[in-house]
């Protein structure tokens, strides 16, 4: 049952066996699995309820409605813009459908470095199989790649490097190219149409536009969650539960734990991974139509292992017009003229598996006082997101960017413009090096992210981890964290299936100790 604010009665207090904060990948699969076992489950979702009829393909209204900070989420210094859903179904409602399993070498790294032997590939495989079946995850057929994905496939063939088709979670997709605005055709098999549907079949109640603001740990079997209705009334609801699962994502989960005084470990809020993304624009003398077609249907993993399993991979975006408008290089007339070539444009995204040095490169925390990154000053607490490129990750990213430019030329681009505050046109592959003489600091080299993970990381050593292998928060046996924040390292692939698989495995392992 979905409870939207207008359906709320006078009652302000509710109870269930389990209250889950967040309806994204982690919260949804947890709800479905626990409700199926007969537990009563309530989900609190901060964002609004949406269904197919809301997905009108209007960029301004939908991005404002469904993205965190209306699409303007970024690190404090604005150097990395972060796309994250704040809507029924979480980021799965607005993502680009890429559905990779966690690579084996990543799961093996989790076992060696974090003691997570229960997540080795042989244990994860059945979970991935179930998820793939439920979400209709399949390989995109060769006939369905759009011209933009062909740049990766054809360019890689020309260069003699790796490229392949990706898997995605769709059924009867017509390739409208508007995945980021919610699927108007219900082709994308996101949480709304899969695990949230399953959870509702087992009587889960979902409160949308309802933001959890505080969790009170009373005892092992008694927790209280305060939530504020997001309809302008600021009405507070109180939920009592035996267990609470925090599944609000790697940005909001640590903030909620800190706000609730439950972040005893210094790990909570640190070790933010972003899979930072660099972009390059290729101009072609043929129509590419990058705003249409299935996004991310092709990938090149040629540089995925540059140092100890860390490196980069290449994909292409669902290029909504606003994304191009915000991120194109240059200013003034030359920028306008570049935008006018959008139909002949192909964009390659170079994603970096960050965290190679194992140091914390980023954090999500409440702050007071002066923020030197953006000049903000306040005596009231405000959330701060910080990220500094680790030098090894940056080196990997720049190597990846160079390869992306080569892919463009190999696929027939007449000109390539990396996304940088300065418009720099590379006219031939012999001329690529000159671009790398430009300054590459924050707000110079344009950088994005859609994969924040790792701020409440999982591991068996309490001094280095915030949750154990069952995703129980140290040292609070009634509180669990089940979302991308618990991934101990960046997964090195688009994270949806990794989040689903790891939560599914955690429930199998511990079942919340119920």
């Amino acid at each position: 049952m979905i409870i939207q604010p207008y359906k709320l009665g006078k009652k302000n207090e509710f109870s269930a066996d389990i209250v889950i904060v967040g309806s994204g990948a982690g919260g949804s699969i947890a709800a479905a699995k626990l409700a199926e076992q007969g537990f009563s489950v309530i989900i609190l979702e901060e964002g609004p309820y949406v269904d197919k009829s809301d997905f009108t393909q209007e960029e301004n209204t939908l991005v404002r409605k469904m993205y965190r900070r209306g699409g303007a989420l970024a690190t404090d210094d604005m150097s990395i813009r972060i796309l994250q859903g704040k809507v029924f179904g979480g980021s799965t409602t607005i993502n680009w459908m890429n559905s990779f399993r966690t690579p084996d070498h990543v799961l093996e790294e989790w076992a060696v470095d974090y003691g997570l032997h229960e997540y080795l590939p042989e244990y994860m495989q059945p979970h991935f199989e179930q998820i793939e079946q439920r979400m209709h995850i399949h390989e995109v057929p060769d006939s369905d790649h759009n011209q933009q994905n062909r740049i990766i496939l054809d360019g890689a063939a020309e260069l003699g490097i790796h490229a392949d088709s990706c898997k995605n979670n769709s059924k009867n997709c017509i390739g409208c190219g508007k995945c980021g605005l919610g699927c108007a055709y219900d082709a994308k098999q996101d949480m709304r149409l899969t695990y949230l549907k399953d959870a509702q079949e087992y009587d889960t109640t979902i409160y949308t536009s309802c933001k959890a603001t505080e969790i009170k740990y009373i005892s092992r079997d008694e927790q209280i969650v305060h939530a504020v209705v997001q309809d302008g009334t600021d009405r507070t609801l109180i939920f009592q539960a035996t267990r609470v699962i925090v599944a609000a994502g790697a940005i909001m989960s640590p903030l909620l734990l800190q706000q609730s005084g439950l972040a005893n470990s210094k790990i909570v809020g640190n070790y933010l991974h972003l899979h930072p993304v660099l972009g390059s624009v290729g101009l072609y003398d043929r129509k590419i139509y990058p705003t249409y077609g299935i996004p991310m249907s092709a990938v090149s993993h040629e540089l995925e292992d540059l140092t100890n399993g860390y490196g980069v991979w290449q994909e292409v975006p669902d290029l909504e017009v606003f994304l191009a408008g915000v991120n194109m290089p240059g200013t003034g007339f030359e920028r306008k003229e570049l935008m006018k070539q959008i139909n002949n444009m192909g964009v390659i995204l170079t994603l970096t598996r960050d965290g190679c040095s194992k140091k914390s490169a980023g954090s999500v925390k409440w702050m007071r006082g002066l923020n030197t990154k953006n000049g903000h000053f306040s005596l009231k607490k405000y959330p701060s997101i910080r990220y500094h490129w680790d030098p090894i990750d940056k080196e990997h990213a720049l190597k990846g960017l160079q390869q992306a430019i080569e892919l463009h030329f190999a696929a027939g681009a007449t000109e390539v413009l990396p996304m940088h505050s300065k418009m720099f046109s590379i006219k031939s592959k012999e001329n690529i090096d000159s671009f790398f003489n430009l300054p590459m600091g924050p707000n110079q080299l344009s950088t994005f992210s859609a994969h924040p993970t790792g701020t409440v990381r999982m591991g068996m050593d309490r001094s280095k981890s915030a949750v154990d292998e069952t995703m129980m928060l140290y040292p609070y046996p009634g509180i669990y964290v089940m979302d991308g924040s618990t991934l101990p390292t960046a997964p090195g692939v688009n994270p949806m299936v990794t989040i689903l698989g790891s939560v599914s495995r955690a429930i199998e392992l511990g079942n919340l100790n119920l």
Partner: protein
Amino acid sequence: MTAELNILQETDYPLLWSLGELILGIDQEELGEEFIFEADAFISNLDDFLIDDLTRLLKLFNSRFVAMLRVMKFTKFVDMDRELKKEYYQSWTNSKIGLLRTGSSTLRALCGWSYYSLEKSWDDLEIPGKTLGREDKTPTLLEGREPWESWKEGRQ
């Protein structure tokens, strides 16, 4: 426009239009009031502390004193000629001071969003449009059409 602004005021129009013209290369007439209203909606959607920051940034960017420090002219941004505006904005974009580059990136995002998230910008870019109800007239996977030509025909 009958709608009301939430954060911005009518006195902010010249600044927003000047920024749009400089950053996007699109003149004031083409940007229109919709651009201002979209910027206002964008700002309204931010967390309260960021709304304060952004309105402060707009004031700072238009301040004579900051201009004096950056380009040695005691002139508001809106009153600068085109070349000086460009020089002033570039002095933020290329600055070694990270905070100024943050300001420049913020203004770029604000302007880019406020124009290109509007459907009216699609005409100028010759984007074939929404697919809903016109799947066969847009470059979707439905075969048997010349999307670009069909789209143009459909608009005539």
